[in-house]
């Protein structure tokens, strides 16, 4: 049974301190959504400063019969941190310490609120970095990255977050703390770490995370390649992979986004290009040179107009600054945007991209594409003005059409943003009843009382025998 909010907040304050548990309307409004479009409502917000406080807060929510939703920096785009069912929102921003760095074993223990880029900066003097690099890396937290199994441009060669999390201390729904994974290889038992990563806070909260640190590559070559057609660029992506080259990153930007970015940061992008590719090779010098030459050859064979190689670190950083500023840059075009995230087999990219532009035309929407082409991970970005009557419905319908297009091409629903609220109802597009039932059982094994971020990822009715129910107060 849920008790009074005042008593709940008082009990939370005993754990985290008076100023760090609150229920003022302004605060609740602030934490009613993440960077996605879904809106919810929290009953209280609290800010633990350690794993002990975090576990204590979870125990308080349990005593009061409440669910809890964990939130890092709130940069998630799928509504994974949207509070549904009057939960307590637990914010990890005060848990921002790097607890230990072991340069020999190349491991760091961090608290979940440590920002992704801050970790790489902290270990830079040891010539190490943290490889997953979402575009929001200056703002997003490692804990949030663990929640969504976040990606980024350099995950093409280095793998997504899961490949970089060795172990974590998870606070489970009952407030107990379990060490999942290990710093030793091949520890026996189930890979609980592996299934926890990417569970979007529905299995508990990571209170401490051991991440793998990656040595900085001795050689690096960054290419900016300019194309007169989107199709040539897409064919080049497949061509590079087929040639046996796995670049560290292989990113694509179409004409509209390239122009917007160029106006925004002045990275020297060709503003008359139909598409540009950023290809980055890293490793040892001879291999990098050979691969860079081969990639440039593939591009020229497929009609590239020019291949610019970054001459120094400054030029490389400028090229990347352009890519990573893309979502800021589009503010010049319109006030709002919806950023999609799907993956298709990379060989289907040319067809699927053509389909995406067809859908844009059909729904009369401005659609831009800036994405992880090497992974087949599309990010169609719909730019709109929310005050325009009826536009939200059109955006939503176009998003659904893109999802269907990608699924028809053998793709999946999300590559790195997660399912959250946004794509929950789309799960049956790729999973059968039995698939979803097993996923629900696995989730329930971690959180039998269903109090960790309820009603996310799985659509209502996923458990065989589940009653159809729609959470109150949620809309997208």
């Amino acid at each position, binding site marked *: 049974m849920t008790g009074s909010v005042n008593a709940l907040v008082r009990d939370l304050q005993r754990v985290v301190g008076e100023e760090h548990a609150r229920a003022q309307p302004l605060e609740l409004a602030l934490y009613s959504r993440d960077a996605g479009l879904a809106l919810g409502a929290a009953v209280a917000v609290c800010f633990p400063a350690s794993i002990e406080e975090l576990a204590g807060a979870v125990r308080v929510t349990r005593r009061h019969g409440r669910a809890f939703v964990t939130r890092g920096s709130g940069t998630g785009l799928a509504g994974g941190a949207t509070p549904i069912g009057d939960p307590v929102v637990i914010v990890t921003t005060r848990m921002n310490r790097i607890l230990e760095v072991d340069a020999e074993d190349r491991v760091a223990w961090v608290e979940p609120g440590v920002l992704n880029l801050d970790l790489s900066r902290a270990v830079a003097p040891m010539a190490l970095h943290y490889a997953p690099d979402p575009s929001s890396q200056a703002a997003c937290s490692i804990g949030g990255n663990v929640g969504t199994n976040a990606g980024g441009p350099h995950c093409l060669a280095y793998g997504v977050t899961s490949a970089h999390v060795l172990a974590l201390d998870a606070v489970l729904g009952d407030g107990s703390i379990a060490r*999942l994974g290990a710093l030793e*290889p091949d520890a026996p038992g189930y890979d609980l770490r592996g299934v926890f990563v990417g569970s979007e806070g529905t299995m508990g909260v990571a209170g401490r995370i051991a991440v793998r640190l990656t040595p900085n590559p001795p050689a690096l070559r960054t290419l900016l390649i300019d194309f007169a057609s989107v199709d040539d660029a897409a064919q080049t992506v497949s061509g590079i992979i087929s040639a046996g080259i796995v670049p560290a990153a292989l990113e694509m930007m179409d004409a509209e986004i390239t122009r917007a970015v160029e106006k925004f940061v002045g990275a020297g992008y060709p503003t008359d290009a139909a598409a540009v590719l950023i290809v980055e090779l890293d*490793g*040892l010098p001879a291999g990098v040179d050979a691969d860079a030459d081969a990639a440039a050859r593939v591009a020229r064979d497929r009609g590239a107009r020019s291949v610019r190689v970054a001459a120094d670190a400054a030029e490389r950083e400028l090229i990347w600054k352009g890519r990573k500023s893309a979502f800021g840059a589009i503010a010049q075009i319109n006030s709002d945007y919806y950023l999609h995230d799907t993956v298709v087999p990379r060989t289907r990219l040319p067809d699927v991209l053509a389909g995406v532009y067809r859908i844009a035309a059909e729904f009369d929407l401005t659609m831009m594409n800036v994405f992880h082409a090497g992974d087949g991970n599309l990010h169609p970005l719909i730019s709109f003005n929310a005050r325009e009557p009826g536009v939200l419905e059109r955006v939503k319908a176009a998003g659904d059409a893109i999802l269907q297009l990608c699924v028809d091409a053998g793709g999946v629903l999300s*590559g790195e943003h997660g399912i959250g609220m946004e794509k929950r109802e789309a*799960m049956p597009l*790729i999973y059968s009843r039995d698939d979803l039932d097993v996923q629900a059982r696995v989730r329930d*094994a971690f959180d039998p009382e269903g109090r960790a971020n309820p009603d996310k990822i799985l659509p209502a009715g996923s458990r065989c025998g589940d009653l159809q129910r729609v959470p109150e107060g949620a809309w997208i």
Partner: protein
Amino acid sequence: MDLTAPTGATLEAVEAMQGVIRESRSVALVGTGTHSGVGGDVRADREVRGPAASIRHDPADLTVTVSAGTEVGALDAELAIHGQECALDPSDPGATVGGALACGLSGHRRLRHGPIRDRVLEVRFLTGDGRLVKGGGPTVKNVSGYDLPRLLVGSLGTLGVIVQATLRCTPRSSVSQWSTGTADPFAVRSSMFRPSCVAWDGTQVWCLLEGHQDDVMTQRDGAGLAPSEAPPWPIGGWRGRIAVRPASLRDLGPALAGVTGLRWIAEVGVGTVHAAADAPEPIEAARALAHDHGGWLLREEGIGVDPFGRPLPNVALMRRLKDALDPEHKLNPGRLPL
């Protein structure tokens, strides 16, 4: 569109397996038996085998969909046709793909290629009540739903019967070369960029380098190593795998050298030690040292040695998962102490 749904002979085999699972009280999962000593001993009424060899390689996507009964050696040969590979690297290439994934033991190139679990994009498996379930998806990146492939890898067949997997491939390096010497293995490892393996037996170091010819030579010469054969991975009637934090090998190595009758080679930078003997006692002694260094020794072969050596962590949580996927505990009873 479900591009990787089992079809044809694979689907027929899956349906037969479903029948066996549904009508039996308990089933043992059997491959080619190369790793049957991993985990506890299984006692079951019936056996099921993974669907026979079926390989669908998509070279341009760098992925391959393979039935569980396919031998790793056969998969490797198929991928080599297009200059690709999937570094499963079981100690015996006669191992099946399903068996290698279920055991979850990473091969000797883990230092460069990462653990075996990172190779898996999608699994199709049968639950304890005989349902055919898909986890993950065929694309190289995917966060749609819970990451069941990770959960199945290394579960020793106790959560589900893997019948098919879609794996990530990589281009095969143009040069792949072992070299050896007597340099300090820890210095060798830290001086090199992405070596595939740094093996050490307490006196000699072997290094596997993959990549461009010039880079391989430069790194090899820089470390003062000379071209060689692969290291003599230890064999014997009793075998185990030690897992410790990589830096612990500095102290563990000399301690293992003091165990009479033990043959061992460590993977520096990884924390794995392959140990073998002709009797159980040296393995038990090695296990005691592994425990002293905060790690494990997992039995790979040999009677009279406990498979794990001490209680597993998170047993209550693992038991709930077992109940969720195999409610009647039909699959591989005895393999894991749950």
